Each structure stands twice: as structure tokens, then as C-alpha cells.
């Protein structure tokens, strides 16, 4: 009997300690109390590593300790992304900023709901569910959504590719994971450019699931099947493009057949420099990894108005893409210093890369 009472008491006590209503922070925080969290899929790919580096660069640039920066990796597990977020919000939710690369569209809703319930602050990237916007009623803690116009990215690299092959000939295309929206949009960009260029034919398309080890055997098979007919290779991301380059290298064709990708990872930029790749498009991982944290920092320290006072476009915009080709590759060869982003992190100029409202 006494044992049961003890357990009940312990349960009640912990409920009160952890389950009570969270403190809301409508008043700004002290900068030493702010927690900056970058929530992303994984860290193995250079794109994600650069997201992380961007976040750390920002935290250092405002003179804060690296201990206030937390990296959350969900390894492509949507539930884990949300539960990691909830776990860390057991303390100090009102002064916590999340910069989120959502694993999938549905959990953007869960992440935003968690933020609204606990008083934490969220900036999301890439895509969000249709009809669900930061500027809607009740989403006050969803500071902003920074989208990437993947259709434009696809169009931009496809144009570079078509130019490099002189507007004539056959190409093959490596798609990303077929269910991913960026994969579909980038491919749609290619198809749009193909419609404008009747001299170019799409010989074949396969999915290599964003992975260079899967791209390699596919391109090998294509080289056996189509031989000389392949005048260029299109890939939905740099990792697959680099896999294609290796398959070309095995046949002594690296650098002779134009290859394009998307992401702007350092290895791809090197390949553009040496001529093995023709072009890549970057959303600028350093920017994406830091801008959400900068927005949260500005809001929480009172240097920027509360999100409820921002315009709709300021809360939901597409960022400016950078096409990297032989003409401008030299600027991007080395990792950028923090000073390169001072203009973007400035609390008055947080929207400097806005190119228009996101969908």
C-alpha cells in the first residue's frame, strides 16, 4: 500500500515538474540564453556538413559560445526529427530557435505545432505542405519558411547543359528519389528546357536515389547501350553527377561529355573547375544553415520585429540560387569566411536573398 502511494507521489511530482504548461516567451531573451538548433537529416554529405558549418559560423559571429549551438540529426527518420525537437524543449523552450531541414512534408506541420505549443521558434527550409503558411493565424512561432525554387534550379542547370552540347544530341538523366518534391521539380525543369530545344532528345532516365554508388552502374549500362549517342548527362544532384563522372572516367570520357548536377558541393565545384562537370546550382548551404538562426536571434534579442509584424512575403520566400559554371567558379573554390554573410545576417536585411514568394 505504501509502495503504491510512493509511486503515485513520484508520478505526480514528475508530472508537475515536466508536464506543466511551458513558459511563453513573448518578451525577448538575453543573448546568452538563446539556444540555436540545426535540425537536419545527416552529416555525412558535404551539403549537410556545410549547413552545420554555416550555423556554427553564425553563432561565433555574434560572439556566442559554441555550447549554445546544438546539431540534431534524424537519419531520415521523420518521427525522430520531431521527438528530438520535443526532447530538447523540456527546458527553456521560449529562447530556443530551430533551423529545420524537414525530412518530409507532413512533419512540417508537427514541427510547427510543437513550436506553437511550447513557445519555441522555428524557421523551415525547402518545402512545406500546400495551404499551410507561416503567416496563417496561430503560426506565430513559425518565423519564416525559406523555400528553394527547385524548378528554377532544374531549368538553370539544364540550360547550361544544353548550351554546352550545342543544342543538339541525346542526353540521359539521373533522377533523385522519385517521391521527393525537389527531385520531381528539378526533372520538370529539365523537361521544360527540352521542350524549348527540340534538337535535344532524352534518350533515357533512371533513378539513382541521390546516390553516386547507384549512379555509377546505371551510367555504365547506358554507355554500353547508347555508346556515342550520349552527348551529355543530367543529374538531379551533385553526388549522382560525380558518380556519372567516374563511370565516364572508366571509359576515358571524363571531361569530354558535359555533366551537370545540383547542390554546389565543394567536390562538384572542383569538378567544374577541372572541366569534368559543366555546371551546378547552389542554394548556398552556409546560408541555409545559418539564416534561420540569424532570424531567431534578431527576433529574440528584439533587434527585429516579432514575426506577426512581418509581411507575408518576408515569412514565406524563395531564396536566390547561384549557378556555378566555368565563368564564376573561382569565387566559390574556397569555404567562405563569416564576413561574406554579414549582409545576410544583418537584422535589418534578413530578407536580402528574397527572390519572390514561395508557393
Amino acid at each position, binding site marked *: 500500500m505504501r509502495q503504491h502511494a510512493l509511486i503515485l507521489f513520484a508520478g505526480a511530482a514528475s508530472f508537475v515538474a515536466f508536464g506543466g504548461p511551458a513558459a511563453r516567451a513573448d518578451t525577448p531573451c538575453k543573448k546568452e540564453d538563446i539556444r540555436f538548433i540545426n535540425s537536419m537529416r*545527416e*552529416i*555525412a*554529405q*558535404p551539403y*549537410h*556538413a*556545410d549547413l*552545420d*558549418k554555416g550555423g556554427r559560423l553564425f553563432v561565433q559571429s555574434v560572439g556566442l559560445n559554441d555550447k549554445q549551438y546544438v546539431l540534431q540529426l534524424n537519419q531520415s527518420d521523420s518521427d525522430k526529427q520531431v521527438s528530438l525537437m520535443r526532447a530538447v524543449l523540456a527546458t527553456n523552450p521560449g529562447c530556443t530557435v530551430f533551423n529545420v531541414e524537414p525530412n518530409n512534408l507532413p512533419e512540417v506541420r508537427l514541427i510547427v505545432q510543437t513550436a506553437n505549443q511550447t513557445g519555441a521558434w522555428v524557421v523551415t527550409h525547402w518545402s512545406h505542405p500546400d495551404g499551410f503558411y507561416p503567416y496563417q493565424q496561430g503560426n506565430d512561432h513559425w518565423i519564416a519558411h525559406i523555400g528553394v525554387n527547385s524548378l528554377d534550379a532544374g531549368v538553370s542547370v539544364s540550360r547550361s547543359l544544353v548550351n554546352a552540347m550545342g543544342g543538339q544530341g541525346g542526353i540521359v538523366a539521373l*533522377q533523385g528519389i*522519385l517521391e521527393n518534391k525537389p527531385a520531381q521539380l528539378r526533372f520538370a525543369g529539365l523537361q521544360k528546357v527540352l521542350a524549348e530545344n527540340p534538337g535535344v532528345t532524352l534518350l*533515357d*532516365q*533512371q*533513378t539513382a536515389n541521390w*546516390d*553516386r*554508388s*547507384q549512379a*555509377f*552502374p*546505371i551510367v*555504365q*549500362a*547506358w*554507355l*554500353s*547501350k547508347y*555508346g556515342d549517342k550520349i552527348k551529355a548527362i543530367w543529374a538531379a544532384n551533385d553526388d549522382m553527377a*560525380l*558518380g556519372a563522372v*567516374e563511370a565516364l*572516367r*572508366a571509359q576515358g570520357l571524363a571531361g569530354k561529355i558535359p555533366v551537370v548536377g545540383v547542390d554546389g558541393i565543394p*567536390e562538384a565545384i572542383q569538378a567544374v573547375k577541372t572541366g569534368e562537370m559543366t555546371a551546378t546550382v547552389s542554394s548556398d548551404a552556409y546560408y541555409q544553415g545559418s539564416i534561420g538562426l540569424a532570424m531567431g536571434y534578431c527576433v529574440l534579442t528584439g533587434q527585429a520585429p516579432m514575426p506577426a509584424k512581418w509581411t507575408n512575403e518576408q515569412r514565406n520566400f524563395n531564396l536566390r540560387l547561384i549557378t556555378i559554371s566555368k565563368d564564376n567558379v573561382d569565387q566559390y573554390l574556397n569555404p567562405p569566411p563569416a564576413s561574406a554573410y554579414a549582409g545576410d545576417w544583418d537584422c535589418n536585411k534578413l530578407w536580402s536573398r528574397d527572390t519572390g514568394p514561395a508557393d
Partner: protein
Amino acid sequence: MAELGHARVSPVGRRVARREVGASTIAATLRRNVLAWTPALALGVLCIAFSIADARFASLANIHTLASQAALPLILATGMTFIILQGSIDLSVEGVMAACSLTFALLVRNSRTGLDLGVLAIVAASLLGACFGVANGALITRLRVPSFMVTLGTWSITSGVAMLISGGQPPQIRDMAMRNWALGDSLGVPNLIVVAIVFLAVGYLLQTYTRFGRYSYIVGSSEDIARLSGVAVDRFKVLAFAFCGLSSGLAGALESARLGLGHVQIGANQMFLALTAVVIGGTSLSGGRGGVVQSMVGVLILTVLANGMIFVGVTPYLQTAVQGAIILLAVIAATWHLRGRLRVVK
């Protein structure tokens, strides 16, 4: 009296039995042999079908491509065969490949460290894989935890180790001699398939001429009886996992040399492919039946299938489904003759 197929053997001797052997036993033997050839038959059918669909499938250039694509799955399937023969499973292949890939990439001339070990790096990566395998085997035999659980854990651990080493900056391999060797040919034959065939030969020798190989069958079909008979079951289990780890390490290093970097995802999907190849080839998942040559046939079936679908032009939206359907058919065909007997199917 003992029963031997449909013949009866009396204690008096074989002479009685031979007189009694009739057409029924010969038919049974023939049936058994033909059915053992089903996977090879399936391979033949696939090759012919794809060649009819597109004549370039059978061209020398494509055979070269097929050989190159089959090389690493062959190495993995050879290693996996002994594990499956013993009735265990090794889920850690992908993680071990990743860890060894990163290690290999850091030991050859690369963009991050100053080392330049060349071929020794391949040996080192393979030995590292073998060490992970020994760890697997030790945990399974000493702690008596099922292989499924242990290797599931090792998969995560080795993947984590790989991610730690990679640190978001995958080391790029700058040793061009090594890269060109991995991508290139000798006398028109891809170098990697040569390595794979040598590895297969080693596997075959182990399977046929060593105690480890022959007793693996016994461990697989009835482990309790093996133990009671005094067979060193634990030692052979550890050896099997060590060999599988060795194959994973070697495959990880070679794939890195081919792609040019140490990559955490280098083993993506490979465990499932190796397992499927072993099963399609005719090695039973519950152990005691099969061999490395059968696994080679399984590897060839999968490689021909993946390559052939690209030739035929199967739309990517359907490829996974088609692959799954054909694999299912192949497995059913391979185990059709066993379905009648009172056999425990797990």
C-alpha cells in the same frame, strides 16, 4: 532395414541393393540434379530474353559492363554464403563496408591525411573488416545472442564509426594509379572482376577442402548434433563471420577506389543484394544447403536483371516492382522441389 531412396539395403550388402535399384531411383537422382541447375537455367533464360529484346545486351561492351558490375556483389555474396550456410545472418555488411571504405580512403593518398599506403591500404581495410567480423562472432558465440541482434547492433556501430571518421568531409582519393587500376582493365577484363574471381576461388577452396567449409554445412543443418559430436561449432562460427567481415572490408575498399572517395553510404543496399543473391542461387536461408558457386549464379542473375532492365527500358517507377517479382519467381523455382517434403519453413 535401412531405406535408401526407393531401394532397400539389407544388412547382407550392396549387391542386394544394386539389383533392387530401378528406374525410380535414377529418375529421382536426375530430378535432383536438374533442379539444382534451376538457378543457372533462370540465368540463361534472362540472358536470352534480354538479348532478344535488345541485341546490344549481348555485345562485348555490355559483357564487360556486366563483369564490372558483378565484381563487388560477388565478393560480398561469397562472404555471406558461409554465414547463411551455418544458418546465421550478418546484417552488419553495410556498416563494415562504410567503416572500411573510410579507413581505406584515409590510408591511400587523399585530400585529408598525408599517408600513401597504396595496395597495403586494401589489405589493411580488409583486415579491419575481418576484425569486425571476429567481434561479431565473439559476441554471438560467447554471449549466446542471436546473430540477427548482434549484427544489427554492429551495423549501427560501424556506420557510426564511419560517420565519425568522415566528419562531413569525405576524403577524396588522389592516388590516380589506384583509381585507374580500379576503373580499368587488364587484357580487356575489368581488374575488379579478376579480384572477385580470385576471392571466389578462395571461397570455393575453403568450402570444399577445409574442415571449416565442410563442417559449416553440418552446423547449418543441425547445430545441436554438431555440438554433441564434438565439432568446434563456435570456432567455425567466428571464422565464418571473420570471412564475411573480410569480404565486406575488401568490397568497401575496392568500391572506394572505383568511386574515388571514402563514403558513408558506400554499402547502401548491398546487404540485401548479397543476401538475395545467395538465396536465389540456391543456398537455403535456414542453412545446410548451397555453396559459393551457387551464390555466384545468384549474383549473375541479379546483375543481369538490373542491367537488362535498363536495356529494355523499364520505367524507373516500375523497376523495383519488376525486380521484386522476378526475384520471387526465381526463389520459388529454386525451392519448388522441396515444398512437398515435411520441411520446416521459417
